[in-house]
């Protein structure tokens, strides 16, 4: 397979995100890397080619036309909860569908999609550890993430329709580190609000471990869906203990009301339904990634948690 070909380039969409940059820095030492992102790549290593364009644009085709691309890592998913639903949908779903079209057309041998364990959704009736076969119910209580579920589903159907492309879907739990996602931002708060009387078990994974998993997924022969569980699960309260911060327990009804009000007044970046993540469990069974992918998180749980303040 040509993905074994070390001279063929890997395309990374959304390369200008923090995770994308990290992956690019690791990967460009081993093989050519092409980045696709509509944002500029500020401190780009010289040997990385960067195509500054929108995924939905026709010009994207030129990226694939120019060389025999060995694989694509799709990180270009829009997570901004403030963006309009239409923009979200068109970017995440239409853009990804376009990308899949080119993967099929140019017979690209490898596609790695970074989905998320959030697609399962925190629910009161969740099994403690959800396997890859669990239904994706994340949208039932939190409509705004439906397009992320759709991306996951599109990738799944592509997996079946195009067996000649090795499609890998990674579903990591909450990613912590220098990334600006909801869980990292939440743990960066000086005082961490919790829900009075709830203390769910939580899994977290460090961004460097996610980068490693993405690299492992590029290995020829790897395909399928893999949950990434990170180090051992902990109760939320112990995570706050490890950070050495205080928590502020708020009754759910009050917290929910406040969040809704603050959200409508643009005082918070956390959408109110995300409260479910500190109320119910949403943990994954990562047996398959440990056994089939051979992926083990290298960072300890303490280092993973403390890494949200690493760039201070």
């Amino acid at each position: 397979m040509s993905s074994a070909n070390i001279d063929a380039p890997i395309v990374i969409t959304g390369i200008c995100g923090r995770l994308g940059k990290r992956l690019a820095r690791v990967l460009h030492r081993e093989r050519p890397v092409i980045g696709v992102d509509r944002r500029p790549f500020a401190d780009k290593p010289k040997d990385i080619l960067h195509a500054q364009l929108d995924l939905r644009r026709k010009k994207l085709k030129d990226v694939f036309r120019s060389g025999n691309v060995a694989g694509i890592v799709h990180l270009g998913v829009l997570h901004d909860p403030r963006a309009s639903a239409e923009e979200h949908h068109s970017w995440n779903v239409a853009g990804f569908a376009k990308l899949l079209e080119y993967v099929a057309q140019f017979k690209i041998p490898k596609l790695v999609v970074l989905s998320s364990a959030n697609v399962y959704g925190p629910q009161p009736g969740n099994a403690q550890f959800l396997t890859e076969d669990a239904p994706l119910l994340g949208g039932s209580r939190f409509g705004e993430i439906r397009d992320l579920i759709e991306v996951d589903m599109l990738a799944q159907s592509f997996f079946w329709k195009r067996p000649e492309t090795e499609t890998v879907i990674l579903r990591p739990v909450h990613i912590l580190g220098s990334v600006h996602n909801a869980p990292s931002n939440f743990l960066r708060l000086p005082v961490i609000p919790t829900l009075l009387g709830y203390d769910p078990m939580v899994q977290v994974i460090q961004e460097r471990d996610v980068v490693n998993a993405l690299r492992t997924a590029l290995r020829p022969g790897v395909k399928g869906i893999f949950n990434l569980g990170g180090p051992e699960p902990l109760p939320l309260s112990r995570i706050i203990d490890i950070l050495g911060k205080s928590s502020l327990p708020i009754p759910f009804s009050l917290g929910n009301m406040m969040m809704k009000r603050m959200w409508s007044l643009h005082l918070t970046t956390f959408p109110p339904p995300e409260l479910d993540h500190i109320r119910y469990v949403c943990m994954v069974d990562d047996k398959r990634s440990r056994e089939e992918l051979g992926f083990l998180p290298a960072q300890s749980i303490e280092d993973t948690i403390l890494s949200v303040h690493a760039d201070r």
Partner: protein
Amino acid sequence: MYPWLVPLRRDRRARAPQIPHSSALATLASAAGGFARSAFPFAKKLVDEGIETWMARLLGEELSARMDRVPVNLGSAGVDRFGFDPEWAKYALSAAAVLHRHYFRTDVFGKENVPTGRVLLIANHSGQIPIDAAMIGAAMFMDIDPPRFIRAMVEKWTQTLPFVSMLFSRVGQVVGVPENARALLEQDEALLVFPEGARGISKTFDKRYQLAEFGLGFMRLAIETNTPIVPISVVGGEEQYVSIANLQGLAKFLRMPAFPIMPQLLLPGGQLPLPTKYRITFGEPMRFTGDPDDDDSVMEEKVFLVKQTIQSMLNRGVKSRENIFW
């Protein structure tokens, strides 16, 4: 006293970096947090010592000594991956153990029948509120060697209740889905199941000690995970609350599992369960083989064997006791 827990957390707190706070709210909350951090251990120490002396007086030094011998699978933070925390379980167990020894004065038979390693405990369910589960839990801890913590399954709506969800998870109760049961047994735990479910616990007095219909799920689970089944009979639970009727229509309307009519609730002190004498018998382990996905009819035959065993243990237990209360 419980070296596997406390020092670990204290060290970590000391090592954690101090985050500079900016806003007034943050300062206020951190001050409150700081106060709480110094006040809580003190209060906790008082409570801990209080409970310890109380336990020692009522139960002898036994409980603490047993606590050190329980096999548990703990992570570095002192909880297992289901959120079970032995420090919390200690309090729940000491309360159950006091009831076990001094209120219901439980007699335990067949202690030698409980194997070490994974086991499914299948028992009759009775008594309107699940005191029988607590008594089996106390018996497994106080009377069986080596002592065991039991795990049980709870309804998923309990997870929506604040404090209840947290308490259940810390004392080892998990949401009742097959995946969780499988994971617990693969972890070699002792899992308590009442196959009668709500049908059993809300029996009226005229149906006492007559087993209601058994679910089949536990048998599939036992075969799939190759787990021995220990049948258990609990005698004494049916008389703790005498229910003369169960208003199912009203229960459905109120979205409750049952609506029992219990005249004793009107008497002063009748809200407490009657101090009947509990007799818990552990039967010999039963092993089943076959295909876990077999037809219901095949499963029913196997389940019937377990049900028959428990029913005859119950009949013998009821017949041999001379008095309900002693």
